[in-house]
């Protein structure tokens, strides 16, 4: 059963690459129009050290931004979940902030914190990814059925105890659902800064240098590397979810 679970996604990835290869081949596109999967190994071999260094750069800044998102988003969600006034006050602000295209914020950040590239990148990864976490935690807490509060509230338990023993664990499935969205968003934020405001670091900068040199295989190799990192982080979240919120998973059937 586990064997099938691993084999199925691998087969689907192979099928995807095959179709891609076929389309490029059938159209007779040269390398400088569209790269095909068979061009990629050469690009990885040639720049393997750059891929390792830049992947690490992209990865740690994304994870750092995501970590701040989790702390800040959970805090914001708690405030909105427990106080109606805070919810009414913060929602329009949050939605408005989320609606602003983040690409437009990159130059602002670059000017504000000039030269602080790592900081800017982490900040963007954070800004783009905290919203789903805040909303899901907020909704999870505000929709807690009154009986759940009452079973401990009737014993004189403090609000904090009720939060820790009941509200927090009960919200974990929603939290992890939001985190899966946030992981991808944080990646987009990191790459946005790396591409728009380049400073020679990260996969975004490598992509840009591929573009400057007209090296299509390199650009596509970067995209695939980004996809790979995204999948990696996503499954890291899934693993955490299994540990902390595995109880929410029903047995199929």
């Amino acid at each position, binding site marked *: 059963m586990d064997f099938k679970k691993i084999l199925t996604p691998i087969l689907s990835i192979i099928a995807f690459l095959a179709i891609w290869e076929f389309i490029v081949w059938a159209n007779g596109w040269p390398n400088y129009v569209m790269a095909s999967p068979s061009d990629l190994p050469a690009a990885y071999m040639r720049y393997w050290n750059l891929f390792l260094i830049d992947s690490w750069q992209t990865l740690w800044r994304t994870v750092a931004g995501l970590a701040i998102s989790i702390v800040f988003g959970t805090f914001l969600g708690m405030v909105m979940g427990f106080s109606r006034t805070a919810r009414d006050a913060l929602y329009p602000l949050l939605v408005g902030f989320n609606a602003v295209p983040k690409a437009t914020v990159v130059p602002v950040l670059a000017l504000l914190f000039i030269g602080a590239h790592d900081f800017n990148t982490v900040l963007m990864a954070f800004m783009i990814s905290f919203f789903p976490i805040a909303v899901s935690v907020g909704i999870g807490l505000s929709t807690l*059925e009154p*009986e*759940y509060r*009452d*079973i*401990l*509230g*009737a*014993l*004189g*338990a403090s609000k904090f*105890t009720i939060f820790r*023993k*009941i509200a927090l*664990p*009960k919200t*974990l499935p929603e939290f992890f659902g939001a985190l899966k969205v946030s992981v991808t968003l944080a990646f987009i934020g990191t790459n946005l800064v790396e591409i728009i405001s380049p400073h020679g670091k990260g996969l975004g900068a490598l992509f840009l240098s591929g573009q400057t040199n007209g090296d299509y295989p390199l650009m596509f190799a970067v995209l695939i590397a980004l996809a790979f990192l995204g999948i990696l982080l996503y499954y890291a979240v899934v693993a955490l979810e299994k540990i902390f*919120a595995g*109880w*929410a998973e*029903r047995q199929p059937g």
Partner: protein
Amino acid sequence: MENLIDIRGVTHAYQTKHGPLPVLDHLDIRVPQGEFCAVVGPSGCGKSTLTRLVAGLMKPDQGEVWLHGEKVTSPRKTVGMAFQNPVMLEWRSIIENVMLPLEIVAPGMAKSEKIARAEHLLEMVGLKGFETKRPSELSGGMRQRASLCRAIVHKPDVLIMDEPFGALDNFTREDLWQTMRDLRAAEPFTAVLITHDLRESVFLGDQVIVLSGRPAHTQYVLDVDLPKDRTIDVLYEPKAVDMLHLLRDQIRIAQGRDEEMH
């Protein structure tokens, strides 16, 4: 005998958009120590408000709630609650659910003692062997049994139940009534049971209180003069049947339909 629960002239209204909505009107209920008080009444007559008042989760606009000779102003550690929804925490096993109140009420109690107490109760309600199961692996009736164990695990002097058997099918419900009767014989609590089921109120209650329609006051008090160790068969004997008829008439009056009776 001392009245363990003493509700005196409790009046309460909710504030709504259309002005105050009175739900309780000079309600009086007295339950002597160790007795079982069943409360019946028409839908929406404020029965659930009553449970929150006794638990100290709300304060009445007027009147007083006394438990054990003390005026209730806030939640007390000596109260147990059970609801129609068994409110099982899915991330905990059955026994961990049952032990939950002890973590609040008796944080210093040794873990082995907590486990022994929970195991003892689970065995009494017929859930031996299900201690480590997740709530989702149990049937509705079994979850409600576990919920009852959790409500009394910390030996509360008052057990408040808000239609705990309301969502169960008839056969399961009758099983649970007998479980409740056995728990009562073994544990020292004084109970208030809110219910819609007149047979349930007569089977379990020492007294049945009929509330009027909203705003609710005490309309009728029935002393259930049946043996304590009654069986379901009792409900089919003339004495109980008479009581059920009487309660039914009282409910009709409470619904404002007494003119339809004849």
